């Protein structure tokens, strides 16, 4: 439980910052080098590195070194879960609403 709470905190913390949300959105489209990530923002490369570190710690992005460049990409596991869960939820809710329908019929 403690572990879940910590992870939750780090994800919420990561996404609380607009620059980090923007970075996440951009790297979700394709992987970017750290320089490319930094390009649109008027902040230092050091500040960008700090943002990336926060996202990495929350397991929202992956960083990979290839030659001289560091590539940043979205960590699929962080977000794929949401899709799988929604499919499950739909099945659950349909079954749940069958129960409600049954209940409302009985009540007549």
């Amino acid at each position, binding site marked *: *439980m403690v572990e*879940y*709470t910590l*992870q*939750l905190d780090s*994800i*919420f913390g990561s*996404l*609380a910052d607009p620059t980090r*949300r923007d970075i*996440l*959105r951009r790297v*979700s*489209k394709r992987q970017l080098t750290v320089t490319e990530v930094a390009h649109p923002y008027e902040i230092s490369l050091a500040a960008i590195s700090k943002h990336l570190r926060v996202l990495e710690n929350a397991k929202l992005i992956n960083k990979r070194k290839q030659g001289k460049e560091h590539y940043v990409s*979205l960590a*699929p*596991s*962080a*977000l*794929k*879960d*949401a*899709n*799988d*869960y*929604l*499919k*499950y*939820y*739909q099945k*659950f*809710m*349909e*079954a*749940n*609403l*069958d*129960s*409600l*329908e*049954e*209940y*409302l*019929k009985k*009540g*007549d």
Partner: protein
Amino acid sequence: MAEQEEAVIITRVFEAPLEKVWQAWTEPEQLKRWWGPKDFTAPTIKIDFREGGKYLYAMHGPAGTPFDKDMWSTGTYKEIVPMKKIVTTDNFADADGNVVPASYYGMPGDVPTEYQVTITFEEVDGKTKMTLKHVGMLEGADDMTNGWNQSFDKLAASL
């Protein structure tokens, strides 16, 4: 509409007056009698039905299935428009109401994502049309902008 792809939308028309469907969703004694899929029971239903109030439900699956245990869910009522609309957050929980990821119950989802459920009620020719919309948000903070929710939906849908 990429942002729609991440939402589950279910519409049902119930052959019952709107008031009755509303009560079925909002009164604990009634929810206890139907909450959960077929052959599930709802041993605990606690509701503090006001904006900012919380609910805590337990459902229990049939013996001999992996769901033969109390499975808790919790949420906070964000908006209540009597006989019209209920907006709540929705999460799996432990028995104390602490939020847990879906994987806690052996379901997909290691990241503790917060979901928002909007249920609307509408009378149509003496029947009740109910629409349930379920949207995932990676963040749970109230001050998050709606724009980000949409962005996140697009993000997840693009994977």
